[in-house]
């Protein structure tokens, strides 16, 4: 086997040195009754070319975004990925390293995290960002835990119904056996209902969580929500499933959010059937010491030379064990590298322009669909690259009809929102040409081909 370098001579010499006659003796610490007495019932080893062919055949049974006209979003976005990213992340000094426990030989990993933390702070308008969580949904759940921990006596958390369903479900899983009460804030015209929010807020509420943009692509009035939330002494968590919006719309930090979490997949990470991505996590200075996850800080060596280290580790599980701020023991470093390279390439001007292109494309699609007989754009406010349309025919049948024309038209909302049984969530990015959008509009209207 090409990954196993041992020759028979090596094995014999090693056994001799150890002082045993066969490898099996090394396992004598395992009682007989704990041994597997038969070979594993798995296939035999495949050669490299057989492995490749086998997996290529599986891959070909799938439908990549590149071979369809796709309008799917809902928490995973089809954006163009510059070639530079895969080139750089393929350097194996990066991807074959582990957690930078030894800073002297991990300055590449550490500096990249420090830069990532800075980029996330700039984008979200916050003071401190960590080295990332698993994804947007789990980061959102950890944010909820932080707010309850920090608020001490307050045990209630209000979740906007417009928060992506997968985020709400993940929050519920994380809170399942903790003393935390979750309550929903209802919808009004596709955004968080402020009157309902106001009626739910009391001195037991630790946090209010809203999507920005929310699951329907709508831009919430964060500033007003922040005012209401702060007046009740609670923290506002803004959860950002599509962070490209932050290059165009006011940052959650500017609007008054206390915690900003979100999913970074939009920034150069392949869709990869929904994972891995990254959860970013940013807070105000006051919450720095209750943050979950890894943090990198700047320091110097004994010659006064700048260097970077993992820091404030006394929050973490390997030191605090059951009293840690989280059980997390990794970050999504390979993926934050993709995000950082993406943001560095696009920079101040490119990211804004890209966001404007996404906005304009979606606005065009929205307008065209609104003109179709029987279709309407469901919600009235501003949205970013995603929007909901109300359809005149059952959504499942409509999607099927469009599929046959090579179009993945969007996501049905009926499963998660009974009141939106006729709702289709359509996502348009810079990857959708005008021709594709026109084809979608034509097909929705009942046209063929």
């Amino acid at each position, binding site marked *: 086997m090409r990954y196993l370098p*041992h020759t028979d001579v090596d094995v014999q010499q090693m056994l001799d040195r150890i002082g045993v006659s066969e490898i099996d003796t090394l396992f004598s610490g395992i009682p007989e009754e704990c041994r597997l007495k038969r070979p594993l019932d*798995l296939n035999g080893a495949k050669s490299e070319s057989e*492995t490749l062919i086998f997996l290529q055949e599986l891959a070909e049974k799938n439908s990549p975004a590149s071979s369809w006209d796709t309008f799917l979003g809902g928490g995973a976005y089809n954006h163009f990925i*510059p070639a530079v990213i895969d080139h750089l992340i393929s350097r194996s000094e990066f991807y074959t*390293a582990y957690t930078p426990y030894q800073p002297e030989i991990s300055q590449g990993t550490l500096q990249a995290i420090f830069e990532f933390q800075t980029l996330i702070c700039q984008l979200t308008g916050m003071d401190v960002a960590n080295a990332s969580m*698993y994804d947007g949904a789990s980061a959102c759940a950890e944010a909820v835990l932080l707010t309850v921990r920090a608020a001490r006596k307050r045990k209630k958390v209000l979740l906007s119904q417009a928060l992506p369903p997968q985020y709400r479900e993940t929050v519920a899983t994380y809170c399942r056996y903790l003393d935390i009460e979750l309550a929903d804030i209802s919808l009004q015209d596709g955004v968080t209902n402020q009157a309902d929010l106001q009626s739910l807020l009391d001195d037991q509420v630790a946090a209010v969580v809203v999507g920005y943009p929310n699951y329907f692509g709508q831009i919430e009035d964060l500033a007003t929500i922040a005012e209401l939330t702060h007046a009740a002494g609670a923290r506002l968590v803004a959860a950002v499933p599509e962070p490209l919006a932050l290059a165009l719309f006011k940052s959650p930090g500017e609007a008054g959010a206390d915690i900003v979490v979100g999913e970074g997949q939009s920034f150069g990470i392949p869709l990869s059937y929904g994972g891995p991505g990254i959860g970013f996590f940013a807070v105000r200075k006051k919450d720095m010491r209750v943050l979950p996850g890894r943090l990198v800080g700047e*320091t110097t060596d004994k010659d006064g030379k700048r260097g970077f280290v993992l820091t404030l580790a006394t929050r973490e599980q390997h030191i605090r064990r059951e009293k840690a701020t989280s059980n997390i023991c990794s970050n999504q470093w390979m993926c934050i590298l993709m995000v950082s*390279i993406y943001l560095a390439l696009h920079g101040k001007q490119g990211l804004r322009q890209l966001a*404007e292109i996404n906005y304009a494309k979606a606005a065009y699609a929205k307008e065209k669909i609104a003109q179709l007989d029987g279709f309407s754009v469901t919600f009235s406010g501003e949205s970013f690259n995603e929007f909901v349309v109300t359809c005149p025919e059952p959504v499942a049948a409509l999607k099927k009809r469009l599929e046959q024309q090579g179009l993945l038209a969007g996501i049905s909302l009926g499963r998660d929102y009974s009141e939106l049984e006729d709702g289709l969530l359509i996502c348009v990015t810079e990857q959708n040409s005008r021709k594709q959008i026109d084809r979608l509009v034509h097909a929705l209207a009942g046209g063929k081909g």
Partner: protein
Amino acid sequence: MMNTESRGLVLDENLLFEQSQPGRVGYSLTGLDVPSATPDSRLVREEITDFPELSEVDVVRHYTRLSTWNYGVDSGFYPLGSCTMKYNPKINEAVARLPGFAHIHPQTPEALNQGALELMYNLQQDLGEISGFPAITLQPAAGAQGEFAGMLMIRAWHEANGQKRHKVIIPDTAHGTNPASSALCGYDVITVASDGILSKEAVAAVMDDDVAALMVTNPNTLGLFEADIREICELVHQHGGLVYSDGANLNAMMGISRPSDIGIDVMHFNLHKTFSTPHGGGGPGSGPVGVVDKLIPFLPVPYVVREDNSYKLEYNCPQTIGRLKSFYGHFGILVRAYSYILSMGGEGLKRASELAVLNANYIRARLEGEYDLPNKQRSLHEVVFSEDALQNDCHTLDVAKRLIDYGYHPPTIYFPLVVHGALMIEPTETESKQTLDEFCDALLAIAEESKNNPELLKQAPVRAKVQRLDETAAARKPKLRWERV
């Protein structure tokens, strides 16, 4: 041996933000083919202050240089104990990038992604065979999230049986994630001393009907198989509890012993350890969980099932603990792990475990005597020395830093906590005898240096990009981002 003449080109590199030049760009966007549109100006932000402006060349050179300051498995030997830093096969990287895997949207109708679901189903089956568990969830994003999922299922099962139990027993050799994951499920942690191997008596002393579960790592973090595990599982079961196994050290066990056969009820896998997926500088990992029959109703949703020769995501599980993250797990990592299993085959996996154990025992044989070995029992895939044989006030940290000067990534240090100044070495099976010999020669030379020239250890590393960094200052006055001065 160390060649002190060669230092290579270790150059400095400013931060992205410090290199930024107004007006410089590193992108090319396709022009707008629809009318331009802008949102309500009251909602629009100002430009992002101090966001970088760089050319493509700037960015490529920046990250290329950063990579040269790193040390990975492809750079050399990386014997980080309990982390299983085995070789990351390149075919795995290639297949994960196939467009049919890399560019599929998670909301695509299931009928159009049958290949992805089939891959996940096959991987569930293979991990089931390796561990003996009848059901596997691939959803957890990492080992720690796998622990959380497993402990949630344990609690859900107890509650479904009308039981409110409050305690989880964890040996003192455990990873910190074990108590942290238990606490997330609302459990109180009872730590039990293990003296190398956990005894049935030690568990019996704290076992009662308020204990929801015992969490063990097997083999444990000293590299020892928990010899009494069968009796311990029986004891816990007699009291109505369940046994969780941390699968961090499964690399010693493939084809040799299966957790479910010996009484374990739940276990997580670390695909980035045992199944060769890259550690990626700290992630993404992947932490599938296997469970016995009675826990199947509580699995997180969704998981993949096969029906009439097609595959689908199952959501209809009334007793599920719920969802752990968006979508279906770290699919890109699952592809790599499956590619590894295909390449190794059943026999190859067993051979990998055998050679991993051979390698660790060879290192033990070569270093025992010069380095203090507190636990003398037969050890498996890793060996843990203490700092007690070191001379002249040299400590484990000094040995680790000196190893850097010899060109190696240091082992795990100061863990497990039960060993004084632990030096925890896990070579894995992908290292040759020559590599192990050179590494042992280096450690023996360092032991000599500690006697004759301890300053070499105290000053180390001298050949890395930076010398020892002031971690105290970093924590006292945290600077966690760049800001324009």
